[in-house]
């Protein structure tokens, strides 16, 4: 239970980090909050030869609201900061409300926004929230910067679209449209454990109460955040009713791909998904002030 030896660098500037990853590529592992990579190193599931510690990059720790209402959040912003920041609470309430579901305070005091996205654990909350909110992610290398939509950022289990010479530096979250409701819910066997299944809902209605757009995104329901598009399309152009929510949830439980294990069989997980989906749709709908 001790990490294998590694070389260690703790740069003071992003430029230095970019030069290191350009030179070492996949041999260099970036250390953000360390709440996933350090356990993996302790178990020797991963044995990186070079650790580049990002914890002195204060330039990647920020929460700013642009004049257009877009939230810009630095990759090294701690999860605990997101939980407590008044701007996040006011402008990205879904993100604010989901933070306490992530492990425990002791973990969130270290864990970062960027680390959670880059780790791309299908059971983690942040990738699901950023996907549901239609966010985008900024990668930077010595060659330049590029934005990737959250929808396209996650490409496989523990895998994002990031290249070996790139660093995840920022996340942008667009403002919620008018008449938009949101909800997050998950079920875990013990407080703070990885959830068996969970989901985020973002729903927008028009002035007549007809659904303009809905996103329903699941965690632990496949290799990446699972956006149940067929299910949510049932709502678009319709007025929400209990019957419609039930139909959406039924479609969604077929659309997702949970894996059963000794704690919960696949049919149980699908049933759970359906129950949680109905709850989350109702919660999101209740929050829309028509």
């Amino acid at each position, binding site marked *: *239970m*001790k*990490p*294998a*030896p*590694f*070389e*260690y660098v*703790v740069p003071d500037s992003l430029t230095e980090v970019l030069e290191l990853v350009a030179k070492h590529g996949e041999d260099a592992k970036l250390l953000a909050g*360390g*709440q996933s990579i*350090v*356990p993996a*190193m*302790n*178990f020797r599931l991963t044995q990186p030869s070079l*650790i580049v*510690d990002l*914890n002195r990059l204060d330039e990647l720790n920020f929460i700013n609201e642009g004049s257009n209402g877009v939230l810009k959040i630095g990759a090294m912003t701690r999860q*605990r900061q997101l939980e407590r920041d008044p701007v996040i609470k006011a402008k990205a309430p879904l993100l604010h409300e989901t933070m306490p579901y992530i*492990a*425990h*305070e*002791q*973990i969130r*005091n*270290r864990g970062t926004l960027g680390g959670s996205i880059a780790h791309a654990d299908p059971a983690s909350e942040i990738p699901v929230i950023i996907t549901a909110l239609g966010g985008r992610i900024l990668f930077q290398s010595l060659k330049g910067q590029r934005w990737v939509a959250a929808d396209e950022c996650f490409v496989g289990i523990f895998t994002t679209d990031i290249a070996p010479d790139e660093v995840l530096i920022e996340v942008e979250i667009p403002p919620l449209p008018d008449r938009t409701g949101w909800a997050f819910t998950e079920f875990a066997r*013990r*407080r*703070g454990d990885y959830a068996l299944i969970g989901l985020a809902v973002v729903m927008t209605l028009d002035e007549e109460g007809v659904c303009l757009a809905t996103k329903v995104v699941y965690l632990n329901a496949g290799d990446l955040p699972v956006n149940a598009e067929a299910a949510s399309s049932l709502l678009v152009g319709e007025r929400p009713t209990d019957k419609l929510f039930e139909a959406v949830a039924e479609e969604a439980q077929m659309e997702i791909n949970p894996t059963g294990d000794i704690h919960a069989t696949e049919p149980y997980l699908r049933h759970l998904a359906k129950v949680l989906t109905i709850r989350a749709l109702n919660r999101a709908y209740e929050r829309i002030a028509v």
Partner: protein
Amino acid sequence: MNELFEVNLIVNRKSYSRRVEPRLLLSDFLRHDLDLTGTHVGCEHGVCGACTILFDGLPIRSCLMFAVQADGHELTTVEGLSSFGSERNGELHPIQQAFWEKHGLQCGFCTAGILMTMSVYLKENPKPSEHDVREALSGHLCRCTGYQHIVDAVLLAAEKMQVSTMDIPG
């Protein structure tokens, strides 16, 4: 042997300077290099909470950080909770006193971590409900007590901290 890094840090208001291998976990550094064995090591993957300490005043898992990362930072471990060594020699922190009075531990393995989390929690939440306390305890596993006496102890500690004149670290 890997390159050694110099680490200068403050633990329980005392300055230390050591040279460490980068792979040395902060939990092992506290125990083996600084002889502060009050911080316990349980699961070594961030689940059990036994190794919880305060890092710049915030509770964190010391098994999920490297000692080299503590350079320039200020830490508090369970040894720093009581006023031992000051003019109030031997006086327990109100949380420690409450754990004593309510029998909030049996084997004591998980206790140090719980005390560290609660020392911060009770300052931010001076009048928690029983539900709040159980929620705040969720990052700590105890295999002896069934938690009931721990919850009682934390609730008593909340009362004690209201009237304590001790300079409480963390």
